[in-house]
């Protein structure tokens, strides 16, 4: 009788403590959201107050509400309107994604090749380092000469910027593959391709995803830089057009659109990563 009572007590305590833990986690989440929101409000407030109190002219720094108006004027239009964000954003996004895909695949390919063959590593490493240390946006004018003012140079620029983080991370990730796992494949007389596909590539996956995460943002950057150099459409063009008439609120609004786009792309990569490599960081437990 006492046995049953203590047991049910224990069960109750377990239930209570797990409920308390859930509660605590929810509170932490609410608190974090609260802190984020408070920080954002403070930023807007300081912005608004400094613009008003220091009477900053709106061609230097527009007030927050002016940015909101500019942002909204681009949203509250038909999708096909030349005044909206939709067309330039679509242009920029499609070019950035195309470039990202090309750059990421090439990065994966060359990174794998360098990790797999010492000779390729020795041959390519100096150039990789040289190009890596070069500020790649400086190549943009050259690319515009080669690929013209159309989508070609934007895609090329995006691919170029997405390529390096992917190549470097693929290389590092594959080299970090655990020796024991490679020896396992050796004991099983696995072919080089089998070892690559079943051990080295999955081992490198966390690195590769970090590369993708960087690459997608860089691809966006590359596209915008190419657009600055005299393209006909895209977010970069929207920014230079607003700049030409000192519509600073318009520039800010475009930056907000790009910022949100970048965050969304980052979140998509993270989401895919979490569902694909759910085993990462837990493999050794």
């Amino acid at each position, binding site marked *: 009788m006492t046995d049953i009572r203590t047991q049910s007590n224990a069960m109750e305590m377990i239930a209570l403590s797990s409920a308390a833990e859930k509660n605590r986690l929810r509170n932490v989440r609410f608190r974090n959201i609260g802190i984020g929101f408070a920080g954002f409000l403070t930023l807007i407030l300081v912005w608004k107050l400094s613009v008003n109190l220091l009477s900053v002219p709106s061609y230097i720094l527009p007030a927050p509400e002016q940015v909101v108006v500019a942002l909204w004027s681009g949203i509250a239009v038909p999708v096909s309107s030349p005044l909206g964000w939709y067309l330039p954003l679509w242009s920029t996004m499609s070019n950035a994604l195309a470039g990202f895909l090309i750059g990421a695949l090439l990065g994966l390919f060359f990174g794998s090749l360098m990790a797999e063959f010492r000779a390729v590593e020795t041959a390519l490493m100096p150039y990789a380092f040289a190009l890596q240390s070069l500020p790649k946006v400086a190549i943009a004018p050259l690319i515009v000469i080669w690929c013209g003012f159309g989508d070609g140079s934007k895609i090329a620029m995006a691919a170029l910027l997405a390529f390096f983080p992917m190549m470097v991370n693929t290389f590092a990730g594959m080299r970090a593959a655990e020796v*024991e*796992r490679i*020896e*396992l*494949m*050796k*004991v*099983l*007389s*696995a*072919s080089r391709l*089998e070892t690559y596909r*079943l*051990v080295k590539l*999955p081992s490198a*996956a966390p690195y590769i995803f970090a590369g993708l995460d960087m690459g997608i943002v860089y691809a966006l950057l590359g596209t915008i830089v190419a657009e600055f150099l005299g393209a006909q459409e895209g977010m970069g063009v929207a920014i230079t057009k607003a700049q030409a008439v000192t519509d600073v609120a318009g520039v800010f609004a475009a930056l907000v659109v790009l910022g949100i786009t970048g965050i969304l792309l980052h979140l998509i990569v993270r989401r895919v990563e979490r569902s694909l*490599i*759910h*085993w*990462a960081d*837990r*493999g050794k*437990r």
Partner: protein
Amino acid sequence: MTFAVDAPTAAGIGAAAVAKTQAAHSPLIAVKDVVKIYPTVAGEAVLALDHVNLNIGEGEFVCLVGPSGCGKTTLLRLLAGLDTSDHGTSSLAGKALNGPSEEVGVVFQQANLLPWFTVMENVLLPLRVGGARKTEQLIGQIKALLKVAGLEGFENKYPYELSGGMQQRAAIVRALARDPKLLLMDEPFGALDALTRERMNAELQRIWMASGKTVVLITHSIDEAIFLGDRIIVMSPRPGRIVRELKVDLPRPRVATEMLGNETHTALAREIRMLLE
């Protein structure tokens, strides 16, 4: 309760074992005069194995014990085909061992399961690579082994969802997937806690008795060696040499609780202890 075994003196066991091994007819594994030298980073050469001779019969369970750096792992790596010897020969069932063989399964110190595969995918890996044959019969055997290893119902779990002991059992099943003649184990239970380890020893004994494989197991634990081995090979460090071979005359299946205070066990443990000092 005691075992119905006459317990000879420690010295007697050693002498008898050596005599018996030399007389073994057509051994499954024959290691002859094997020398292995490792270059160190400092530029010196370390003599890891110094003219090692070893015969292992089919179905035998052999334990290698010795202090760290005595070349146990080196010997195992040679048998696994992960390294080559600098002198001497080793053969499996009459065929020279110069590289990885289908007839050899290896269990590493860590379970070494691939974290991106489920338990089932992990244990089937040996049938998937290296041009291995993937027959219904082998797959059926693996499923039966999973059951013996107490992994039934865990086939679709990922390694991180398993305890350390379960991971190591899955690794043993994987090593047996190709139905090899020889199973090599390098301190497979070293990372487990003492109680889990004892249970794993009993299970390994059960799996071994059911499968009839030849096993070479490296261990630091004298108790583990006596519990599992038909024969215990004691090695000395730098240069790695075999200093003594001891036969374990205890009936099977052995039970851990009955080992405590058993005379044969005590005598063997004492002798190995003295050899290792």
